[in-house]
C-alpha cells in the first residue's frame, strides 16, 4: 500500500476539491466527483460452500450476494457480485492491511483466493436527475428504474472503457469503478457530456 501522505488520487490534477467549492449543486442536473483510494479486495470461492460464505460473513459482516449483478451492504462494507465465483469487498480507504490477512486466514483449507486490487481503480461518482441521461450516452445497459435500481451493479463498457457500475441510491447516484489508467479519459468524456445537463462538482 502507498504511504497515505504520498498518495494522490488518479484525478487529482483536475483540482476537483477546489471546483467543488464553486457551488451550483442546488440547480445542477448532474453532480460529478471522485471517491478515491477505496479499499477493493477481490475474493473468489464457492458460493455453495457454507464454509466460504461463513468465512466472508465472519470477517466482513456481509452476506455474499449470490444473485447476479447485486450488492449486499452492512455498515461501511459492501460486497459486489462480479461473477458466479467472484466478488469485490469494497470499503473505506486503508482497510486492506487488516481485511486481506483476515480473509486469507478465514479461507484456510478452501479453494479460495484473496487479492487486494485497491490501487488499480478509482471511482467516479455521478448523481442527480440527469445522471441516467449522461450514462446512456456511453453505456448500452438499460438503466430504466424498473430494470436497474439501487443495490444493483454491472460490469460493462462505458465509452470504450471497462467499468463496474453500481447504483447506490434512487436520486439516482452511481459509482463508476474504472482502471486508474483510463480514469483521466473517462472523467473528461463524462464531464463533457454532463456539461449539457447542468454540471456541478461534488466534494
Amino acid at each position, binding site marked *: 500500500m502507498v504511504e497515505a501522505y504520498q498518495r494522490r488520487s488518479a484525478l487529482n490534477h483536475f483540482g476537483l476539491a477546489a471546483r467543488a467549492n464553486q457551488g451550483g449543486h442546488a440547480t445542477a442536473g448532474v453532480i460529478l466527483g471522485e471517491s478515491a483510494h477505496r479499499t477493493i479486495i477481490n475474493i473468489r470461492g464457492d458460493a455453495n460452500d457454507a464454509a466460504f460464505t461463513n468465512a466472508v460473513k465472519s470477517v466482513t459482516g456481509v452476506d455474499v450476494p449470490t444473485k*447476479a449483478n447485486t450488492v449486499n451492504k452492512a455498515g461501511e462494507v459492501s460486497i459486489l457480485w462480479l461473477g458466479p465465483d467472484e466478488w469485490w469487498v469494497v470499503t473505506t480507504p486503508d482497510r486492506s492491511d487488516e481485511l486481506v490477512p483476515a480473509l486469507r486466514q478465514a479461507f484456510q483449507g478452501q479453494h479460495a483466493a484473496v487479492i487486494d486490487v485497491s490501487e488499480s481503480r478509482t471511482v467516479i461518482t455521478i448523481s442527480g436527475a440527469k445522471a441516467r441521461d449522461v450514462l446512456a450516452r456511453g453505456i448500452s445497459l438499460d438503466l430504466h428504474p424498473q430494470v436497474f435500481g439501487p443495490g444493483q451493479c454491472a460490469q*460493462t463498457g462505458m465509452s470504450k472503457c471497462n467499468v463496474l457500475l453500481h447504483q447506490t441510491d434512487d436520486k439516482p447516484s452511481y459509482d463508476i469503478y474504472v482502471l486508474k489508467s483510463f480514469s483521466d479519459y473517462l472523467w473528461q468524456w463524462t464531464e463533457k457530456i454532463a456539461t449539457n445537463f447542468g454540471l456541478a462538482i461534488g466534494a
Partner: protein
Amino acid sequence: MFLITCPYCGARDEHEFGYGHEAHIVRPTPAEYEQMSDAEWAQYLFMRKNPKGVHFERWVHTKGCRRWFNVARHTVTHEILAVYEMGKPAPQIDTEKK
C-alpha cells in the same frame, strides 16, 4: 447488432462479448498423441465446421463477468437458439423448423 444472454449476467449488447469459434472440440489425450497421424492432427487443429444453419460456438463475456459459455446460433438469421454453460453437452435443436 444483437443481444446475447450471458448465462450469468443476462441479456447484454453484442459488443460486450468476444467470439471463441467452434465449441465442443475435444483435445486428444496424451495417450492418443502417439497414435495420431498428421492428417488427424490437421483435422483437430485446423478443420472447422462452417454450416449454413445452426452452429455451436463459444463466446466470452469480455466486458462483463469474463466467463466463457456456449451458444447455438443460426448463421443465417443470427437467431440465438440456446445458451449453455461450459462443460454441458450441445442441446438438441430442431434445425428443420429454422
